[in-house]
Every structure is written in structure tokens, then in C-alpha cells.
């Protein structure tokens, strides 16, 4: 194969030389056709993503209606209030919600990466194809169920009156844990729920990356006497490295965002659990439910985006220095 490669290279080099005068126009033609491919997506992006971005100014304005009452007129005429909409961050709860948001995200990014890659490799190595397919299908199920539905499932275990665990505790003569008022177990419960929901999804991404690996690489490694473990280390992992890094960077970009339903529905919105369940999204939601302050929710969204951008650009520039091929941009 290496031979084929070099052959192709020399062939292209030759044609390049022989047709050097037509090269510029060919290149331009190629660029033109490739650009036309991007047009549908680019037009969509401009219309539906970029055009509405003027709305970001709402985060810095006291938005209200003027006469004549049109959206554009209201945005223009609304008073500019600087950073006033961001003052919700002055709350004493701010540190807790930031700690929770960042802490859970970092933990879950690390755990999620290790577990989904492990599962993907296991599935690709399982010799029984039927079972492998079955696992893959079943693991995908949580992705279909909303957090509301999942919260009923958790409730069936933890409900103080009829839940399975309190019932078992009662039967064993132990003190019954009132889960919805006891913060002890929630970091663990939330972690399990998060992995349960997302591992199937991301391991599918990794699995399809693994199936795309050129199998001759394994054969070559086997010929060289590599054990299966070594093959995974030297063939599989390097081949899915790009996917791992890309997903990692993208997750880091969402480090200041939390999965609302997980933190709101699964703990049944129980106030006593806020010290371990309050995250930026739930805090803003609860505040918005009372104030209906468009400026504040825009400000919170802007803040999440800004933090995400900083993190993602940072992570990407580190990656670019180490492994330029895997960087996001």
C-alpha cells in the first residue's frame, strides 16, 4: 500500500508539472465548485444564525415596547444599561452554581470520554455480531426518553413513601433515607443519570469511527506480532484520536451550560437539594420564572457563550500546537 501511495504522489507531481499553465484556472474552478457546495449551509447560517445576532444587544439594554411597537424600533429605542443585566451574578448563590456547573461538567467530560471509548472498543471487539448489535441498540434507548420520564424512573427507586430503596431500608429495619431532602447521594445519582443518558450516544460516534478504520492496519500490526491490547493502543486509539479531541473541545465549549432537565426534573426540583443541584441554567430559569426579565436571560445566555468561546478557543489553540490535524479550526 505504501508503494501505491508513493505512486499516486509521483503521478500527481508529474501531471502538475506538465500542466502548470492550466493549474491556476483549474484551481479556481475547483474552488468555485467546492464553494457552491457550501452555499446551502452558508445561506442557512447567515439567515437563521447570523441575522438574528443583532439581538445580542438586548443583553445590554432595558428592553421594552415603544410606539410604533415593532421589534426593531423597540431594540433601537430601548435604553442602554451597560452591565446591569449581568448583576444577577452578585447573588451569594453564584459561587455554588458556578462550582456545580463547572465541577459536574469537568467530571462528566472525563468520565464520559473514558467510558464511551471503552464501550465503543468493547463493542467493536465482541465476536458475537448479534449481541454487539443488541448492546448498541439498547444503549441508545435512554437517548429517546426525556428527563421527565427518566425522573419518574428515579422516583420509583427513591420515593420516600413507595420507592424501592426506602422500602428495602424499612424492611431491613434501617433508618429510611429521605433522598429528596438529603444532598449526600445526589452527586452520584446525577453522575449515573448523565452517563446513562449520554454514553450510548457518544460511544456510537466512536464506534462508527472505529468501523471506518482501514482494517489492513490491524493486519499489518498482527503480522508484526502485536497483541490485541497493543493493536488497540497503537492502531485503534490513534485512529479515533481526532474524534476524541474534537468531541472533547466541543464539550469544553459547553462547560458553562448544564443539561437543564437533569438538574431540574430528576431531583424533582427539590429545594433542599439546591446546594448540589443548582447550576447556571436552573438558577436563571428560576429567576426568569419570577422576573420575566428578557434582559437578564439574554445576559445569562451571552455570558455562557462568552465563557464557552474563551474555553473552546483556548483548548483549540493548545490542540493546534500539539496536533494540528485534530484541531477544530
Amino acid at each position, binding site marked *: *500500500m505504501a508503494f501505491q*501511495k508513493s505512486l499516486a504522489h509521483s503521478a*500527481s507531481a508529474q501531471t502538475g508539472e506538465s500542466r502548470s499553465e492550466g493549474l491556476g484556472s483549474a*484551481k479556481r474552478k*475547483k*474552488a468555485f465548485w*467546492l*464553494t457552491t*457546495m*457550501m452555499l*446551502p*449551509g452558508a445561506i*442557512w*447560517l447567515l*439567515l*437563521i444564525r447570523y*441575522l*438574528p*445576532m443583532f*439581538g*445580542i444587544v*438586548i443583553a445590554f439594554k432595558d428592553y421594552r415596547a415603544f410606539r410604533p411597537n415593532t421589534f426593531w424600533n423597540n431594540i433601537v429605542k430601548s435604553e442602554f444599561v451597560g452591565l446591569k443585566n449581568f448583576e444577577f451574578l452578585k447573588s451569594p448563590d453564584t459561587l455554588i452554581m458556578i462550582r456545580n456547573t463547572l465541577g459536574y461538567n469537568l467530571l462528566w467530560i472525563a468520565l464520559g470520554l473514558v467510558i464511551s471509548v471503552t464501550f465503543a472498543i*468493547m463493542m467493536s*471487539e*465482541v465476536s458475537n*455480531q448479534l449481541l454487539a*448489535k443488541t*448492546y448498541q441498540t*439498547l*444503549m*441508545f*434507548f435512554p437517548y*429517546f*426518553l426525556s428527563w421527565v*420520564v427518566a425522573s*419518574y*424512573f428515579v422516583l*420509583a427507586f427513591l420515593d420516600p413513601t*413507595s420507592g424501592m430503596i426506602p422500602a428495602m431500608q424499612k424492611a431491613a429495619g434501617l433508618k429510611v433515607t429521605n433522598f429528596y431532602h438529603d444532598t449526600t447521594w445526589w452527586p452520584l445519582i446525577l453522575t449515573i443519570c448523565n452517563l*446513562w443518558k449520554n*454514553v450510548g450516544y457518544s460511544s*456510537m*460516534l466512536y464506534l*462508527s*469511527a472505529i*468501523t*471506518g*478504520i*482501514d*482494517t489492513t492496519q490491524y*493486519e499489518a500490526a498482527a503480522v508484526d506480532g502485536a497483541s490485541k491490547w497493543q493493536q488497540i493502543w497503537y492502531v485503534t486509539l490513534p*485512529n479515533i484520536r*481526532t*474524534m476524541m479531541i*474534537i468531541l472533547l473541545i*466541543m464539550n469544553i465549549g459547553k462547560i458553562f451550560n448544564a443539561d437543564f432537565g437533569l438538574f431540574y426534573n430528576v431531583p424533582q426540583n427539590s429545594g433542599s437539594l439546591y446546594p448540589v443541584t443548582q447550576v447556571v441554567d436552573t438558577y436563571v430559569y428560576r429567576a426568569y420564572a419570577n422576573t420575566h426579565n428578557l434582559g437578564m436571560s439574554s445576559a445569562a445566555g451571552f455570558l455562557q*457563550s462568552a465563557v464557552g*468561546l474563551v474555553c473552546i478557543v483556548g483548548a483549540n489553540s493548545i490542540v493546534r500546537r500539539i496536533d494540528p490535524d485534530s484541531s*477544530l*479550526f
Partner: protein
Amino acid sequence: MMSAVSKTRRRSMQMNRFGPGAQALFHIVLGLFSLLCILPFIFVVIISFSSEDSIRAIGYSFHPLSWSLQAYEYTLRLGDQLWRSYFNSFLITLIGTVLSVAICVLYAYPLFRKDYRLRGFFNFLSFFTMIFGGGLVPTYVICKSVLGLSDNYAALIVPMLFSPFNVIVMRTFFQTTVPPDLIEAATIDGSGEYGTLPRIVLPVVTPGIATIALLNALGYWNEWFLSLLYINKNMSIIPLQYLLMRMQRNADFLAKNASMLGADASRAALELPSQTLKMALVVFIVVPIACAYPFFQRYVVAGLTVGSVKG
């Protein structure tokens, strides 16, 4: 021919497997996790067949006191609305998936081409919107007043046509599975860009396309918020998921505002669909997409054979 190749390939792969000990470990780990994943759905199915009395008495349980088909009878009595919403869900998912996969592949392909000079620009154009957006309200204004997305199917499809995340995933698939020589070779053969992509490149990235298609299909199938935003009068086009979410949100609202609505809240609670009905609807929503999954999966696994042709 493909299947013959894949058979030999599989045989050679099988010689090169982990031993029985490791295999057993894999099965235990994957099996247990899979069980954990399917259990809640089984739970949902059991609740949907539980009697209301049982739920009132002992809550949700794997062993209800008594069984009942009531929820499904009621679901079927939704009649028209149910089947129409079902049809809408299928239509939206089908059209949405086909269009969004096409747009995604067309956008991701030039991004992967190292010889395309504008890739940096277009890459950033897409990536930036993953992080920054104008927010819900301005987006709604543009979609409705500029693009006319209101009370029509387009309103349920167009806002989700493009996903920067999927573009990046697709680009990564191109990067990891398509050797650059392949394209060079095709170019030398005189193949134009619009010829190279479907004839030479796409067959190689089938697992990637299947994955993207699955992600898009799931996105469309599960989507309900667009219906809430853009559908006001034309209720005949709402998808099934919205039907379910509306019930859910009604219950949530009444719970939060019970003390404000007073007697009205108690009366309204009577009209709410039962928990069993909601679970029955969850079953209705999950089953079709779960059945479609093996279809996508076949293409993901088909990647094995494609890989062998490549070698």
C-alpha cells in the same frame, strides 16, 4: 461480491480477537449497562399498562396492583389527532433528515479538503454559531417575519436544517476515513467535484453518513419546541412529540400555579390526561424510532466491508 469480501474479512478478523476471558468480561459489562438502559423503558411500558387505581395507591411500580388497557384505549380515542400527529412526525423527520444530511455533507466535504482555500473561513462561519447565537426572541422574529415560518411544515423543518456539531462530526469522519490520495486520484481521472463526492467519497464514509442521518432523524423526531413557537392556529400539523409535551407542560403549569389558580386548578386537574396515558404516548413515540435504529446501524456496520475494499 461485497458480501464475499466481507466474509473473508470477518474470518480474518475473528482469528485476531480477544480471548474468551476478555470476551466474557466485555459481555458482562456491556450486558449490564444495556440492561440499565432498557430497564427504564420497560418501566414506562409497565406504567402504561398499569391501572390508575394502582398508581394512586402505590405510585409507579414494576409490580402494579392491577393491569389495565385504559391508557391505550384512550390513546386510540385521540383518533384523528393521534394518527395525524404520527404522520406529521414521520413526514417532518423524513424530509428534515434527507435535506439536513445533504446540506451537512455538502458543507463538511470542502471543509475536509486541505486544498480548499476558503475552508478556514467557512469552518469558522459554522463553528462560531455553535457558541454564539442571537437568542430565542430575535431568531423567532427573523424566522417568522422574514422567512414566513409560521403555521406551516417549513417552520418545523427549516430551523433545524443545519447543525454545526454535525458538520464537525462529518468533517472528522471524512478526515479519518478518506485518504487524500483517493481524491487526488479521482481528480487526475478527470472527475469533477460533483462527480468525485458521490462516486468516490461517499461510499467510503457510509458509517459517517448513517451516523449523521441518525442524529438528524432523532433531532427531528424528538423536536417539540418549534411547534410551540411557530404553530398557533394550524394544529393539524403538530407532531406527536408536541402532543406529549403539551400534556406534560399542562401538568407542570398547574402544579406550579395551583395556589394562584385556586379552585380553577383543581377543576383543570380533572381534565388532565392520566400518567398512564402519558406513558402510553411515550411508547408510541419511542417504538418507531427504535425500530428504525437497526436500519441506520446496518450502514454503520457495513463500514466494515467498505474498509476491506479500501485495503
